[in-house]
């Protein structure tokens, strides 16, 4: 008797429509002479039919509603995660957080200028122009987009080299404001 195991593999190929013509011919010849493989084939066909005819299980009627609710919950959870850094649960921490916010706010708007804003471009005044008019002098300031017009009084005790422009205000070396509005002048 030829190797039935190999023919059972061919039976599976037959069930799955994967068998080629020559294999099918070989299998049929074998089955005609092998009662066990013939029975195996019959049982295989019946089993495949039984499996394919099993009733299909469906989702419940509430499936869509439940899914929507789950997605909404998920979206809310994501949103809460985003806001978590701002969500402070304990009272003591809340008070500490509020205090820090108040202190920072006071320091930012402080009239005595205890903390000077460092942000913004800084430009050093390094060159004086020869042009004079209306009692004011025009200065060329390194990297500053325009020349600026300043009064002589702005330089009473300051040398040109020590002046700094931050956020359109002019400061001396001790970080004191000389003038808050540096006026750009076009030549």
């Amino acid at each position, binding site marked *: 008797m030829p190797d039935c195991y190999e023919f059972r593999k061919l039976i599976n190929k037959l069930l799955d429509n994967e068998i080629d013509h020559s294999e099918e011919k070989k299998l049929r010849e074998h089955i005609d002479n092998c009662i066990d493989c013939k029975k195996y084939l019959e049982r295989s066909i019946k089993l495949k039919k039984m499996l394919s005819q099993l009733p299909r299980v469906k989702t419940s009627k509430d499936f*869509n509603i439940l899914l929507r609710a789950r997605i909404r919950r998920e979206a809310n959870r994501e949103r809460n995660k985003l806001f978590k850094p701002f969500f402070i649960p304990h009272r003591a921490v809340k008070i500490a957080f509020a205090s820090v916010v108040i202190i920072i706010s006071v320091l930012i708007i402080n009239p005595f200028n205890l903390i000077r804003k460092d942000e913004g471009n800084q430009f050093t005044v390094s060159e004086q122009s020869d042009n004079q008019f209306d009692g004011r002098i025009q200065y060329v300031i390194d990297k500053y987009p325009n020349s600026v017009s300043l009064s002589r009084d702005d330089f009473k005790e300051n040398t040109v080299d020590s002046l700094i422009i931050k956020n359109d205000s002019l400061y001396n070396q001790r970080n004191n404001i000389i003038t808050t509005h540096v006026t750009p002048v076009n030549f």
Partner: protein
Amino acid sequence: MNKNNKENNTNPSDEELIERFQEGDIYAFEQLVYRYKDRLMNFVYNFLKNRVEAEDVVQETFLRLYRNRHSYKKIAKFSTWFYTIAANLAKTELRKRKRKSLLSISKMGVEDKDYDIPDLTLSPEKKVSSNIREKIIRDKIEELPLKFREVIILRDIEQCSYEEICDILNIPIGTVKSRINRGRQKLQKELKHLIEE
């Protein structure tokens, strides 16, 4: 607009729907839910044999789709990609079940199931007999080792091709074929009395 385009607009492919969903079209997501919810339910139920757990896994699968919509790349067939997610979640659920050693898994008996009975013209006696047969088949499928069970479910119940099974289970085609072969042999042996009735 030619006929094909018209057809495509009225019946877009899964791949077109996921692409539209990736672009923010929620209606496309709803269409995918409509197309796949029962297919996945049947698929997952065959793994878990518990209706509540199966529905939970299907919901989780859709939630993963919603959350990770951008992970899908056009190179893969959507159905294969989606079945892979469902199969992995179902297997995770099985592992959890095993770990917890659940002694009283609330198995969905044939008596209290509420899914569709295929032939409503059956007489009560035949219906009972058909339900008992179905329960026996499902029990025997459940008793198969997981590696055989998953290929039998995919091939003989879900009618997936060998290639799709390869992609879903991430195993070589030779392994798929030999597992189908051995799985069917085992099942045939277990269900011999029922088959030969």
